[in-house]
């Protein structure tokens, strides 16, 4: 329980919100992710100026503007490299990355693989609504194969991307899933992700009320707490994923990989480098 009195609490969740009002449709799951992020930061009492939120392009990527932290709204699919550069140059910051299923798994797919491998201490939050919302409804890599859209009449016929499988296979150190229908649950996953060093991936099912109104009610019934304890054994995690229908929420995997830390070889002054060239 958190003590809200001025003495005990420097930052309340509202302190993390900026003055910009979200443009997301009422009913959008991303509103809950924003609230959960504010709460997570309050839970950890991180000074807003010590936090940076990096995003790409899409509805989900609008998140940084609505927070009172530092933010970077970059180009489509490239949030992870920006965040990697930022955290490596500034290890003192808490760096969060916000993305969607299109930005993160399609154009950003390659960077996702490599960010998991690098294991830089980042928290990657992907809001998955199984559609491209901002460009008016094209299929994303997590869209069901038979979902009809204008650009893919009759459905893509393609197997959907399994983000948790890819994350595990690529070496992510913390893997969890949440559902926006449970704000507290989202908050908890984000808190755990930030607390766990290394690359932490939180896959958040976030229904799109405009383009996928089939999702809201259905997902409320389908999302359920995974009936298993989190594991630090990648093999066990892999076996669990084999029976995951995409709606188990909770922490799947919390590994023990050391987060990436640059190996500094020691504090010689710049002038000392000259010695190599001397004849």
């Amino acid at each position, binding site marked *: 329980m958190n003590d809200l009195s001025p003495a005990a609490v420097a930052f309340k969740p509202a302190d993390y919100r900026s003055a910009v009002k979200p*443009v*997301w*449709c009422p009913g959008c799951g991303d509103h809950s992710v924003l609230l959960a992020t504010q709460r997570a930061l309050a839970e950890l009492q991180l000074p807003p100026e010590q936090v940076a939120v990096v995003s790409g*392009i899409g*509805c989900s990527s609008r998140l940084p503007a609505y927070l009172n932290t530092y933010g970077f*709204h970059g*180009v*489509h*699919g490239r949030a992870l490299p920006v965040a990697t550069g930022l955290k490596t140059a500034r290890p003192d910051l808490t760096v969060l990355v916000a993305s969607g299923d299109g930005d993160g798994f*399609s*154009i950003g*797919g390659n960077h996702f693989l490599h960010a998991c491998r690098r294991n830089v201490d980042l928290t990657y939050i992907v809001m998955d609504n199984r559609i*491209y*919302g*901002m*460009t*008016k409804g*094209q*299929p994303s*890599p997590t869209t069901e194969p038979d979902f009809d859209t*204008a*650009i*893919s*009449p009759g459905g*893509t016929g393609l197997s959907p991307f399994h983000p948790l499988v890819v994350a595990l296979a690529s070496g992510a150190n913390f893997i969890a899933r949440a559902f926006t229908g449970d704000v507290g649950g989202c908050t908890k996953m984000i808190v755990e992700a930030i607390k766990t060093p290394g690359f932490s991936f939180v896959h958040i099912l976030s229904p799109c009320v*405009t383009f996928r109104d089939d999702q809201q009610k259905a997902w409320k019934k389908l999302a359920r707490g995974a009936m298993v304890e989190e594991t630090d054994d990648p093999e066990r995690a892999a076996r669990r994923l084999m029976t995951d229908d995409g709606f188990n929420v909770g922490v799947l995997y919390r590994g023990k990989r050391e987060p990436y830390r640059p190996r500094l070889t020691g504090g010689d002054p710049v002038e000392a480098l000259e010695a190599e060239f001397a004849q």
Partner: protein
Amino acid sequence: MTPSANRSLSIALTGSGGAGVMTAGQTLLDAAAKAGFFGLMTRSTGPQIRGGEAAALIRLADHPVQSPGDRFDILLAIDFENLQRFAAELPLDADSLIVADEAAGEPPEFLVKSGAQIARLPIAKLAKSIPGARASMIALGALAALIGLPESALIEAVAASIGRKKPEALEASEKAIRLGAERAPQASVPRLNPPLGSGAARWSITGNEATGYGAIRGGVRFVGGYPITPATEILEYMASALPQCGGVLLQAEDELASINMVIGASYGGSPSLTATAGPGLSLMIESLGLAVAAEVPLVVVDVMRSGPSTGIATKSEQSDLNIAVYGLHGDAPHVVTAPLSVLDCLKTAQWSTHLAESLQTPVIMLSDQSLGQARIVVDRPDAVEFPTRRLVPAGPIEGYQRYASTENGVSPMALPGQEGGQYTADGLTHNAKGVPSSQAQDHIGQLDKRQRKLDAFDFGDYWADVEGEGELAILTWGSSSEPAREAIEAATAFGIKVKRVALRLVSPPQPERLAAALEGVKRVLVLEQSHSGQFWRYLRAFYDLPAGAQSIARPGPLPIRPAEILEQIRKWGTA
């Protein structure tokens, strides 16, 4: 007032949160088309995906119009929510009429300042009096009465759009239209006479649709694409049109994949295309260089938007000229085209495909948001034929050299499957056989070949539209052409004769042709929608312009209007 203006009427229909102004605007345009009018419709919206403030901007005329007008004759506001957002896009004056719902409250300052007459109509209340009726139908009825559009045309248009789905809604809409017409405020509004029926068939089409259809006519049968505003409609159109003529569209995972899919399909023999916008074109640049070096034909449509970077995705600009012409690393000559109007997107896309296939090189077609997302009602255009042919070796192939040095630079391109034609396409500098080589004569030889392809080609009359006579000329390109044409028409009222030269072929430059076109011209006004004057600087690099040439350049996001061009013509024309 321009001569065109007397024969056209501009109407703005605004509202928010489910008012349905976009649909209503479309219905109005459809109705006007049925009544024999020509028209142009564009849209403006707020940042919300649904429920936001929206404006449908419609120009009706007794002749085809493809440029926005200088002002609005009528603004019909279903509400005033956030209307301030559109202030700069709604030029109104004392001759304009504003009709607003009684319940809309106080009008925003810019409306009051305009001096326009503000009339009230109890739109919401009237809609409520008819079960199932929408405010937008009341509004449309009132508009129809005000401008002299026959109710029957409006009802027919509504029936066509919703009648099939919901007959009860149709009945309610009909009643609402009649009620709106009945209660329309008494006001004098310019009347348009419909043109004398020519009997010619009419089309209602957007620039993006015209682009897609033009490409298909040009032979495109493969598209690899990634959604991006304002080009996505091209992909959506192609997704359903291509399979009907034996073609395929793949949605790629990103633009790098898109352009490479296109290269692959083209290498295999299929004329191929992708459509994107500035940010996407930036991603494709490396692979376009590959297509130049390996001599693979393809078309990239760039529907330009306000830049730089993410910019304003929903607004137009002509600021991707630099990257289209200069963006490739190395010396990589290729073709850049630009449609001159919404309808011209069709012919230019078809022509671009022909050029790509004939020259075995990428063609970047610079369309823009003002063309791509605008809808026009025009006479059905005549079909054009280009001898779209990729030069493919015929008969039994022996001693094949893919990149043989020919007189006109174009060497036959063997297609996989052709016996004896096997070669490896390469971005690496290669010799005539296609084998990688770092030899000077091969590097220079291939550079010469690729340049010669463009130098030796006769681009024909399509390179530019050259119209009129005068000592003053407007030299422009792409979407600035139509506002320029109307301005020039208006200039005759001031006794100023202006020549119009509008480039459809941006690159390779055509100095001799331009010199001929500018024969007798003493002063050139170079018109473009770019902050840094990209077209101006490009011309200065490759062309000799008459002394005293002036740059008239400004960026988006606001549309170029004839009046601002006319002002420049009057400033420089009498000198």
